[in-house]
């Protein structure tokens, strides 16, 4: 439109014809300064959350009165226990090297493991299944390995499970805490005191987790199936309840909009109903009568809306791909997905057509299964009873009304040919010599 106007009609003042400005979308028209337009558009028209490098910072030069040199100097690390001296480059300003510890020393953190004295052990920490020596060993390892129980369990001299080690460690710490505290209330906030370590529960949890991890694909599938079944049963129960309820109140004026459970594809809206209190509003409509019932509950509705609802209900059992195939078939037949003149009769016909197409697709699938079964059966036999006949199965999964050639062994050969998209295009299947039955039908003669 732009080019046309500029080139074709230069005399009109509309050199820049109006675009669809009117839709009140968020305007990313006015970009902020400082960023190029393309970069701004890349970010989706929004400003970045954090400021990127300030360009002024890049331009800054160090103050010219400072003299910077780089020197190869030794340094010590306070995190080390020995006095090893290593060397590195240091930025020296005006002859003064920087002060302070090695900058990475602060990252050397360690866990504080509680230490108990022998008397404390004798008083609070004795346990029938643990000797003092073992407990001491455990605590040593804990400190050495920063409470990484996986390693501790591995290194522990006598074979104890990780849960046992954890249990002992946490109970010792707990007892010590309680013992050392001046009053129980002080430490009641401490996590060790609040939540006791439960070894058996941990074992169970880990076992369940490993079971889930090691579940085979088959098991997963089975589980999913069972769940789906359960869901279907629950839903059909709900639907049955819903139909009952919709039948009853012929006298009530207010009734829930039960069909708005599905996403409505078109923006044609329905009537606003008076606010409703009780009755179930999230019913899945399982059969036609309930769709019809809910439509009748509305004081007024549009024919196109009614058709939508019926179509959705009819295709509720089909997956998304099937629905797409139905629509593709409709287009191949030359039918509009939404009828142009939606009168009652037209809508009824349209609905019936859709249902028939669904049946057709199901039958095709069934046929495919049967053939697959058939061919696998035949391959199972060691003797080939049909020598030399090629089993040619040409199938186009996506387009229904395109040449569909199937040949079995023997003499039967069935082929179906349908014309696609208007007059003048004839497509025929290659077929074996016997029983050639091509069929040509024009989609629409209008």
């Amino acid at each position, binding site marked *: 439109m732009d080019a*046309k106007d500029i080139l074709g009609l230069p005399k009109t003042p509309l050199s820049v*014809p109006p675009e669809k400005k009117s839709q009140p979308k968020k305007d990313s028209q006015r970009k902020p300064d400082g960023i190029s337009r393309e970069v701004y558009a890349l970010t989706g028209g929004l400003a970045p959350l954090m400021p990127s490098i300030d360009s002024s910072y890049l331009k800054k030069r160090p103050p010219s009165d400072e003299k910077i040199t780089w020197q190869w100097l030794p340094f010590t690390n306070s995190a080390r226990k020995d006095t090893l001296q290593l060397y590195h480059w240091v930025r020296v300003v005006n002859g003064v090297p920087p002060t302070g510890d090695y900058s990475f020393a602060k990252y050397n953190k360690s866990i504080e493991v509680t230490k108990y004295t022998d008397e404390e052990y004798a008083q609070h920490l004795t346990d029938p299944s643990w000797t003092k020596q073992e407990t001491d060993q455990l605590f040593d390892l804990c400190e050495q390995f920063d409470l990484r129980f996986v390693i501790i369990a591995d290194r522990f001299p006598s074979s104890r499970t990780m849960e046992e080690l954890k249990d002992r460690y946490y109970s010792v710490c707990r007892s010590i805490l309680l013992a050392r505290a001046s009053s129980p209330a002080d430490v009641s906030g401490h996590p060790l005191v609040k939540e006791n370590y439960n070894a058996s529960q941990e074992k169970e949890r880990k076992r369940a987790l490993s079971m889930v991890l090691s579940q085979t694909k088959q098991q997963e599938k089975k589980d999913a199936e069972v769940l789906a079944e359960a869901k279907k049963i629950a839903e059909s129960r709900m639907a049955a309840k819903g139909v009952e309820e919709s039948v009853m109140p012929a006298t009530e004026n207010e009734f829930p909009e039960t069909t708005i459970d599905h996403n409505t594809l078109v923006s044609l809206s329905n*009537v606003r109903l008076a606010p409703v209190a009780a009755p179930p509003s999230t019913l899945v409509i399982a059969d036609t009568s309930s769709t019809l019932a809910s439509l009748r509950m509305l*004081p007024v509705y*549009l024919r196109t809306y009614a058709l939508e609802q019926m179509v959705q209900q009819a295709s509720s059992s089909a997956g998304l791909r099937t629905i797409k195939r139905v629509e593709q078939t409709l287009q191949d037949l030359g039918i509009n997905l939404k009828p142009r*003149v939606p009168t009652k009769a037209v809508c009824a016909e349209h609905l019936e057509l859709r249902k028939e197409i669904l049946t*057709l697709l199901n039958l095709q699938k069934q046929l495919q299964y*049967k053939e697959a079964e058939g061919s696998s059966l035949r391959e199972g036999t060691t003797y080939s009873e049909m020598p030399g006949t090629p089993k040619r199965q040409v199938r186009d999964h996506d387009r229904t009304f395109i040449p569909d050639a*199937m040949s079995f062994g023997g003499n039967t050969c069935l082929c179906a040919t349908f014309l696609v998209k208007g007059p003048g295009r004839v497509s025929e299947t290659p077929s074996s010599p016997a029983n050639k039955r091509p069929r040509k039908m024009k989609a629409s003669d209008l």
Partner: protein
Amino acid sequence: MTNSSSPKRNEQDQPETSGPVLKSLKTKLSKPEDAEKKIVGKKLKDVEISVPIVYGNIAFWLGKKANEYQSHKWTVYVRGATNEDTSGVIKKVVFQLHSSFNNPTRVVESPPFELSEQGWGEFEIAITLHFHSDVCEKPLSLYHQLKLYPEDESTSLSIKKPVVVESYDELVFPEPSESFLARVQNHPAVSVPRLPVGFTLPTPAEDPSERKRVDTKDHPLTQWFTNFSEADELLQLAAARQQVQTHIAKLRRQITVIEGQQQQLKPSSDQ
């Protein structure tokens, strides 16, 4: 355009009152009685009224008089499908325009239910139909995308030939009130199904204010209106269904053939 559906059964629970607005046509959804079943295979239907309407817009390019802000003169409207008067059903229509217009909420209270404006932009117009109180208490909303420029970019804009976009739809009142039914009994714009046997309506009062019909047939824009005929669509649909049904029959035959073959194969492969 007559769309008639024959109602199956009709039970009145409430007595026929003389009050004007009672919805006394409520019917229960129970099984049809065999005595009244006239057409085989049709589903259960109650008495419902359907009003076919057409809504859309016509836009004329202003040509030399066009400036940057007003390049087109357009009219958005709601009309009866056969250009008949719909004022018996529709009380008023509210057109919600783009916020850049002054007073974007425009109310049209008498037929013809249309609104003309000048502008340059295409946007979605919300059309809300308000009905008379005995017809329906709640308003109904439609949405129409205003179209000014022709679909085909290669056509040059012409002053004489407008861009017309219309959509056909039907208002369905599943449970019309008695008075509504009576009023529109013989109204050309409304299609009322055949009433069940034995159901009599009070004769509609000759209300002069209701009978005033703006003769919409003389509207200047009538020449541009599209004529929506269901016949074409019905033909198309029937042909398509025919095709599909034959295809289905063929597939069914094929399946039985295969099943037959497999039956034969099975015993031999068990050797």
